[in-house]
C-alpha cells in the first residue's frame, strides 16, 4: 500500500513538469514564432514625429526677400491616449468652448484613434507659451512646430501664389503628402513645390504609457533629418512690382514686363490683387471665401488666364507675317476705306510703318485679306485654307495660340483659329476671308493673354526672337546658386530683321510723331516704342498697350491691359506703361502730376452686380 502511494510522486512530478513544458511551448509561440507582438510594443512606445523642413525662401532679382517662414505650432492629439483630461483648462488655454472641444475630438477619433491629428492649428509663438507650460498635463496631446509663409512686402500675390493644406486629391496623387501637410496651391509656390518644400524627416521618440517623451529611439539611428527646401531667386524687381501695383491698385487689368534679352519677368501684376498675407494662417479660410466671392475676381490671374481680344496691337504681328509672306512690301499702301471696316479719322497710310503708327483698320483688313487669299480671284476659295494655315503657323511662332511655358501654373493658350476650327464651325468648310476678317484687327475669334502680348513686345524689341518669359533665375543657397537653365533657348520667328525694324520704327512713331496713337506714352529722355489697342468687348472697350524701351537697346518690354476703360489704348494703357518704363529705366518718375493722375483715377467701368455672361468665341 505504502509503495503504491509513494509512486504517486511521479504523477505529481509529471504534472509539474507538464505545466513547465506547456509554458515553455507557449513562450516559444509568443516570443519566437510570432513577431506581431514586437510591432505592437513599438506601436505602444514609439511615436513617429514628422520633422517638417523649412520651405525655401523667395528673393527678388536684387536679393530682396519676398517670402519667408515664421514658426507656429500645431497642437496634435492622439485620441486613444487622452486620459484624465482637464478639459476646462485645455479649452481655456486654446480659447475654445466645450462644444468645439467635443466636435474636434470627435473629428480626431473619426480620422484615427491611434494616429495624431491636429487639434488646433497654427498657434503663434506668443500664444503657444502658456499652452506649452501646461502641456504635460494633457495626456495624448503634443505640439508640432510648423512654418507659415509671410510676405514682408505684401506684393506679387499672383506670382508668389499661396500655400495651403493638402486635400484628398493631393494625397492620392502623391503619397509623400499626409493629412495636414502644406502644399503650394498657386503661383510659384505651386509650380516650384518640389523644390521649395524640401524633404520631410522623421524622428522616432519613445513615450511611456502617459505619453511622456522618454528620449530618442536607438539613439536616433532610425531618424531622418528634414532637408530644407531650396530658395528661389526670381527675376521680379520688387521696386518695379510695387510701383506697377500702385498704378493698378484701383483698376482691373494687368501689367506684364519682361527683360527682352533674357525673357525674365520684371513685374507681373494682375488687378485687382490682394495682400498675400491674407491667405496665411488661421485667417485664411474666411479671407479666401471673401476673395473667391468678390465680383472683381481678385484670385483670378488675368495676366495668364484672361483671354482677351488683342485689339490693334495684333496689327504689328499681321504686318510682319504679310511682309514675310511677300504679299505686301514695306511700301504697300492701302486707302483708309471705312466701308470695309470702321476707323478713326486719319490720312491714308502710304506704307507699313505709317499703318502701324496710325493703326489703320482698313489697311490691315487688306493686309489680312492678302494673307488669307493672296488676292487671286480664281483660286481664293482654295487658297484661303493655305493662307490661314500659314498665318496660323506664323502666329504660333510668335507665341500666340500656344502655351507659353512660363514657370507658373495654369497658363492659358489663348486662341488662334486654324482651318480645322473653321471647318468645324462652318460645317462643310463654308468659310472664307469675309467671314473671318475680324481677326485682321485683333478682334473676332482670336484671344491672347497679357503675357503673350508682353512677349510680342519683347519679340519686336529683339527684332524677331524671344526667350520664354519666366520668373526664376537661380535656385539654392545664397553661396551656391544654381542657374535655372530651362529658359535659355531662343525661339526664332524666322522673319527677317529688316521687317522687324519697320515694326520698331512704326512703334516709335506711334509714341513720338504727330498722328501716333500713343503720344501720352512719350518720355523726354527715353525712346519708347509702343502700339495701342482698343479691344472691343461687352461694356467699354479694354485699353491695351504694348511697348518696349529704349528703342535701340531695349531693357524692358511690357503689355498693359486696363479692362473696360473709357477711351482707347492711348488714353489709359499707354500712359501707365510709360510710367512703368520711366520707373524702371530712370529709377525715378519725374512726371509727378501725370503719375498722380493715372494712379488715382479709376477709368474702369464698374462691374454690374451680376457676373458677366461668358464670352462666346464668335462676335
Amino acid at each position: 500500500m505504502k509503495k503504491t502511494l509513494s509512486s504517486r510522486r511521479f504523477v505529481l512530478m509529471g504534472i509539474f513538469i507538464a505545466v513547465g513544458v506547456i509554458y515553455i511551448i507557449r513562450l516559444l509561440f509568443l516570443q519566437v514564432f510570432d513577431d506581431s507582438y514586437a510591432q505592437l510594443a513599438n506601436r505602444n512606445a514609439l511615436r513617429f514625429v514628422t520633422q517638417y523642413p523649412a520651405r525655401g525662401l523667395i528673393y527678388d532679382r536684387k536679393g530682396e526677400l519676398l517670402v519667408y517662414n515664421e514658426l507656429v505650432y500645431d497642437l496634435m492629439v492622439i485620441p486613444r491616449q487622452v486620459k484624465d483630461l482637464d478639459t476646462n483648462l485645455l479649452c481655456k488655454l486654446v480659447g475654445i468652448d466645450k462644444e468645439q472641444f467635443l466636435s474636434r475630438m470627435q473629428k480626431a477619433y473619426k480620422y484615427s484613434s491611434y494616429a495624431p491629428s491636429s487639434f488646433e492649428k497654427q498657434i503663434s509663438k506668443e500664444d503657444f507659451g502658456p499652452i506649452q507650460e501646461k502641456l504635460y498635463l494633457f495626456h495624448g496631446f503634443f505640439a508640432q512646430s510648423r512654418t507659415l509663409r509671410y510676405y514682408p512686402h505684401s506684393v506679387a500675390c499672383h506670382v508668389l501664389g499661396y500655400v495651403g493644406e493638402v486635400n484628398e486629391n493631393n494625397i492620392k496623387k502623391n503619397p509623400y503628402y499626409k493629412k495636414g501637410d502644406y502644399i503650394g496651391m498657386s503661383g510659384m509656390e505651386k509650380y516650384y513645390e518640389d523644390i521649395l518644400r524640401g524633404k520631410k524627416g522623421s524622428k522616432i521618440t519613445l513615450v511611456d504609457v502617459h505619453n511622456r517623451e522618454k528620449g530618442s529611439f536607438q539613439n536616433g539611428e532610425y531618424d531622418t533629418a528634414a532637408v530644407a527646401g531650396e530658395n528661389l531667386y526670381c527675376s521680379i524687381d520688387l521696386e518695379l512690382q510695387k510701383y506697377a501695383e500702385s498704378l493698378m491698385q484701383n483698376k482691373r487689368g494687368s501689367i506684364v514686363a519682361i527683360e527682352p534679352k533674357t525673357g525674365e519677368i520684371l513685374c507681373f501684376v494682375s488687378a485687382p490683387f490682394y495682400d498675400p498675407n491674407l491667405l496665411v494662417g488661421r485667417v485664411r479660410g474666411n479671407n479666401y471665401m471673401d476673395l473667391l466671392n468678390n465680383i472683381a475676381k481678385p484670385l483670378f490671374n488675368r495676366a495668364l488666364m484672361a483671354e482677351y481680344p488683342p485689339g490693334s496691337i495684333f496689327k504689328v504681328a499681321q504686318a510682319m507675317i504679310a511682309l514675310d509672306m511677300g504679299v505686301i512690301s514695306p511700301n504697300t499702301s492701302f486707302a483708309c476705306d471705312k466701308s470695309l471696316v470702321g476707323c478713326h479719322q486719319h490720312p491714308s497710310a502710304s506704307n507699313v510703318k505709317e499703318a502701324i503708327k496710325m493703326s489703320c483698320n482698313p489697311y490691315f483688313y487688306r493686309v489680312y485679306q492678302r494673307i488669307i487669299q493672296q488676292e487671286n480671284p480664281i483660286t481664293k476659295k482654295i487658297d484661303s485654307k493655305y493662307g490661314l494655315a500659314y498665318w496660323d503657323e506664323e502666329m504660333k511662332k510668335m507665341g500666340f495660340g500656344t502655351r507659353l511655358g512660363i514657370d507658373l501654373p495654369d497658363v492659358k493658350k489663348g486662341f488662334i483659329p486654324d482651318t480645322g476650327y473653321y471647318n468645324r464651325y462652318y460645317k462643310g468648310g463654308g468659310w472664307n476671308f469675309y467671314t473671318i476678317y475680324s481677326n485682321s484687327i485683333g478682334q473676332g475669334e482670336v484671344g491672347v493673354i497679357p503675357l503673350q502680348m508682353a512677349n510680342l513686345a519683347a519679340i519686336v524689341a529683339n527684332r524677331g526672337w524671344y526667350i520664354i518669359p519666366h520668373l526664376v533665375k537661380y535656385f539654392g543657397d545664397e553661396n551656391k546658386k544654381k542657374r535655372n537653365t530651362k529658359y535659355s533657348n531662343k525661339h526664332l520667328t524666322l522673319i527677317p530683321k529688316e521687317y522687324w525694324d519697320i515694326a520698331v520704327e512704326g512703334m516709335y512713331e506711334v509714341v513720338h510723331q504727330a498722328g501716333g496713337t500713343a503720344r501720352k506714352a512719350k518720355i523726354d529722355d527715353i525712346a519708347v516704342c509702343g502700339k495701342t489697342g482698343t479691344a472691343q468687348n461687352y461694356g467699354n472697350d479694354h485699353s491695351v498697350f504694348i511697348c518696349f524701351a529704349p528703342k535701340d537697346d531695349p531693357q524692358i518690354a511690357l503689355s498693359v491691359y486696363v479692362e473696360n476703360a473709357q477711351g482707347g489704348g492711348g488714353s489709359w494703357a499707354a500712359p501707365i506703361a510709360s510710367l512703368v518704363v520711366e520707373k524702371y529705366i530712370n529709377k525715378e518718375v519725374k512726371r509727378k502730376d501725370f503719375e498722380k493722375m493715372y494712379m488715382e483715377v479709376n477709368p474702369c467701368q464698374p462691374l454690374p452686380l451680376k457676373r458677366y455672361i461668358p464670352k462666346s468665341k464668335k462676335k
Partner: protein
Amino acid sequence: MEKREKTIWENLDWTTVLLYLLLVFIGWISIYSAVYDENHSEIFDTTTRYGKQMIWIGVSLLIATMVILIDPKFFSQTSYIWYGFFLLMLIAVLAVGTQTKGAKSWFMIGSFAIQPSEFAKLATALALSKVLSGFEVDMKELKTKFYAILVIAIPMILVLLQNDTGSALVFFTFIFVLFRQGLSSSILIFGGAIILLFILALLINKYVLVGIIFVIMLLGYLFLRRKLSFWVTLLAFILSSIFVLSVDYFFNNALESHQKDRIEVLLGQKKDPQGVSYNVNQSKIAIGSGGFLGKGFLKGTQTKYNFVPEQDTDFIFCTIGEEWGFLGSSLVIAIFVILMVRLIKLAERQRSAFSQIYGYCVASIIFVHFTINIGMTMGLLPVIGIPLPFISYGGSSLIAFTILLFIFLRQDVSRLELV
C-alpha cells in the same frame, strides 16, 4: 553546540538554497528594471521599490538563518498554535484591515503592509501536515478526510471573505498533498473533469457537449478493459450533463462581473484592449515582443514605460519575458520546475511523516502560484492576482515563502534524526 551547528550547515540541501537565491536575485533584478528611473538609479535607495525589496531580501535571509538554527521539532509541535494565530489574524484583518484593490487583506503597521493570507498558507501547511502525520491516520477514513478538509477550508473561507479570490484558490493546491497521502485518484480526475467541463461549457454549445459526454461514456462503458458499472456510468453522465447545463447559471450568478470578464477575455469571447483585457493584452505584448534573446536589461519599452500594470508584482514575469526573451523566461520556468521536482525528491526521503507531508505542501503551494501567475501573464489563465513566489515585489509574500521553504529545509537537515 558548535559541532551540531556545523552538521546543520553541512546537511542543508544547498541545491535548493541555490535555486532559491537564484529566483530571489532574478526577482530583484526584474523589480529594478520594472521601476527603473534614470534619475534615481542608486541600488540602495530605500524609497524605491527595488530598494525596499533589497531590505525584504535581507530580512528574509536573516529569518531563513534563524529558521535553520531553530530545533526542527519546534515547528511540528507548535503548528496548531501558528494555525490558530493566523486564523485569528485572518479574522482580525476582516475587522480592521485596509482595503486595497477590492480586497480587504492588509494590515497597515506604520508604512509597512502585512498580508496575513500569505502567512495563512504557511500555517495551513503546518497544521495539515500535523493532522495527516498523526499516528495511524489513514486517508481512506472519512474522519481523516473531514479533518483535513476542515483545516484547509477554514482559512480558505476566511480569505474568500476578504474578497481575495485569488489567494483563496491557492488552497485548492492541498488536494495534491491529499492525493499523495492516499486520497482516491478519482477525486483528482473528478476535479480535473469539472474544470474541463466548465471551460468547454462556456466555449461550445451545451447540448453538443452533452452529446459528446454521452458518446465518450458509452465508448468507455463498452470498451474499457476494467468494466464500469452501468449505474455508475449512467449517474456520471446525468451529473455531468446537469453540471454542464447549469454552468451558465453559475457563471452569471455566482461570479462577480470582473471575474466573468477575466474568464471571457481568456476564452477570447471578449475583446476590449482598452478595458478588461488591457492587462493581459499588454502583458502578452511585453512577453511576445521580447523575442528569442530579449530586448536587454533595462531596454524593455513595455515595462519601462509602464504599459503593463502591476509589472513589479503580479505581472513581474512580463519584465523577464520582455528583457530576457525566450531564453531568460524559459530559464525561469525551468528553475521553478527543477525546484518543485527537487522538493518532491526531498520530501520522499523524509522519515518523519510530518516532514514528508509538509514538503509536499511546500511544493504544491509553489506550484499553484507558479502555474496561475505565469499562466495569467501569458494569457493562458484568467487574471488572478497572486504573486510569483520569490520574484514578485512584496515583503509579506517573500518572507512567507522563505519561511515556508526553509522550515522544510530545516526538517530535511534533521531527516536522519529519530522522530
